[in-house]
């Protein structure tokens, strides 16, 4: 298997593995637009899709390439504000082009803040990605140009139209979001199964060994930063344009970066499916906890208590997952499927 993998330029594709994604895509385009309530779409599916995409992007960098980043939400912010400005300042730019340009802007900033990775590793790099977090947030608040001179730096989503069709309704935004996420996820899926994806993993596992077998380590790292930031930037566009519709730079703070990191820890590092499972968990879990809290403690469970207990439970889950299931929900899911499979056969 290993020899075969080295021989082929790309790893073999296991077509049977595509059955589940295909089913999910059918649900995403068939059942959900037809039956989902607008609450489900607006409050759960739209944040879920944007966060999933951001987590896919971060997973590429942290899970596959091993470069820990604490600045993801800065790249989301770059994407969102770049899209806003491209749309505002370039007359008649199609939505798809806006999103791609926003992603490229985020990729550019990502490469700049990825440059320290050429010299730094581990914690020193993680801390330096914090520089991106604080600098971007500061620049977006400080310079009015980015938000078209809005006094508090707030931007609002423009009208979303594709080929003359308006996508401003909840279902329209959902379709835009789901299409973007599926498209980019497919690209990432091909990427991690390609020679480049194997280079990412080689750099993560042992940089010196990777260099010895001829992996261009520096280029690979910068490429990981660029692609990851591109995807996170587009996720930022989705977050700002399809989910919140009105965002300020403070919405892309350090807590958001940690949230995306937690998604990939809980979902599973180096797993695309993990990004989706983790995002679903992070979105649904606060709703679940507030219902549970209200049910058990009644009126005592106010929003302050909810907020704190949410932090505690989330923190505890991170530690429990790291100890008991380092590969996250994704591995849990696999084990469950194997158990069900062995019972039925």
């Amino acid at each position, binding site marked *: 298997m290993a020899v075969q993998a080295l021989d082929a330029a790309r790893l073999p594709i296991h077509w049977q593995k595509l059955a589940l994604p295909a089913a999910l895509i059918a649900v995403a385009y068939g059942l959900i637009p037809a039956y989902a309530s607008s609450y489900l779409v607006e409050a759960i599916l739209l944040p879920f899709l944007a966060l999933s995409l951001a987590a896919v992007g971060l997973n590429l960098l942290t899970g596959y390439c091993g470069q820990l980043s604490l600045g993801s939400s800065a790249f989301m912010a770059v994407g969102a504000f770049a899209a806003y400005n491209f749309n505002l300042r370039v007359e008649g730019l199609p939505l798809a082009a806006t999103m791609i340009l926003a992603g490229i802007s985020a990729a550019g900033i990502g490469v700049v803040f990825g440059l320290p990775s050429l010299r730094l590793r581990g*914690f020193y790099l993680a801390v330096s990605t914090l520089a991106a977090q*604080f600098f971007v947030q500061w620049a977006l608040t400080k310079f009015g140009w980015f938000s078209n001179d809005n006094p508090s730096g707030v931007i609002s989503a423009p009208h979303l139209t594709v080929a003359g069709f308006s996508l401003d309704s909840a279902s329209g935004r959902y379709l835009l979001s789901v299409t973007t996420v599926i498209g980019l996820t497919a690209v990432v899926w091909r990427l991690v199964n390609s020679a480049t994806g194997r280079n990412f993993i080689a750099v993560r596992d042992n940089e010196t060994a990777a260099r010895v077998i001829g992996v261009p380590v520096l280029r690979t790292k910068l490429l990981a930063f660029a692609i990851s930031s591109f995807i996170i930037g587009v996720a930022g566009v989705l977050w700002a344009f399809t989910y919140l519709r009105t965002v300020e730079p403070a919405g892309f703070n350090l807590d958001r970066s940690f949230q995306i990191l937690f998604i990939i820890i809980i979902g599973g590092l180096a797993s695309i499916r993990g990004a989706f499972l983790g995002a679903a968990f992070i979105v649904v879990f606060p709703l679940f906890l507030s219902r549970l809290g209200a049910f058990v403690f009644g009126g005592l469970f106010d929003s302050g208590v909810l907020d704190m207990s949410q932090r505690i439970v989330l923190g505890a889950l*991170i*530690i429990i997952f*790291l100890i008991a299931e380092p590969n996250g929900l994704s591995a849990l899911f696999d084990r469950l499927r194997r158990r069900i499979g062995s019972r039925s056969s």
Partner: protein
Amino acid sequence: MSYYDFLFAIEVLVGGLLSGVMYSLVAIGFVLIYKTSGVLNFAQGSMVLFAALTFVSLVERGIPFALSLLITFAVMVALGFTIERTVLRPLVNRSPMTLFMATLGLSYIIEGAAQLAWGTQVHGLDLGIDDTPFEVGGILISSFDLLAAGIAAAMVAGLSAFFYWTRIGLAFRAVADDQFAALAVGLRLTRIWGTVWTAAGFVALVAGLLWGARLGVQFSLSLIVLKALPVLVLGGFDSILGAIVGGLIVGASEKLAEVYLGPFVGGGIEGWFAYALALVVLLVRPSGLFGQKTIERV
């Protein structure tokens, strides 16, 4: 530059150096843990919050100052050993990144628990220290800052003495040097880690009291972790001396930059200036000014 401009610059510099000591105070807690267990403890900031909040809440409930201090210290001891038992021991031999992410989770738990137990309102903390500035050669110096610097110096001296002249300090150094060798000669690693986390808890308590008296005891106290990180990067994660010097450099340059550079870019640069400074230093010296050269160069 006139004489008064010069005096003003000196005043800014001294103020910056003294506030830098406050950063060092937080950074030392990180260094203690990093040196002995190779863990970058992101929860240090929330430990500061936890200690300060516990202390203030006890004092507000009418418990005498000294007793509150003692109880808070006992709580920090319990916290240190609980963390060793429930988080570090199950994660032994895992990658440093995994441990770092675990301390991220830990900081969420400690922050949440501290505020769930003691509430989220802002508490004032009066240590009975006079904060009237006094004048030395035409420069105003805050007496509170000076006292804080004195306490920090005493703590560093105490910690250094502890590391060099006590048996357990020797054990700490052995563990920091080589964990396997330390185990082989029969040192109880688990107990040592518990003690180290307790020591870090003590540092957090001191930092929490001083910072709490400065800013009021509230959630934002845990964010001083973000002030301490560039200090650590600058000084090297494993050097107490580096934490001190890094703190001084960050404090002084941050204040000078805010005064002389800030007006040109619209101010508010203290959020990221220290990080930019740390990055520049790192590009020249990839393991900080005083860190051990263990980082592999690429």
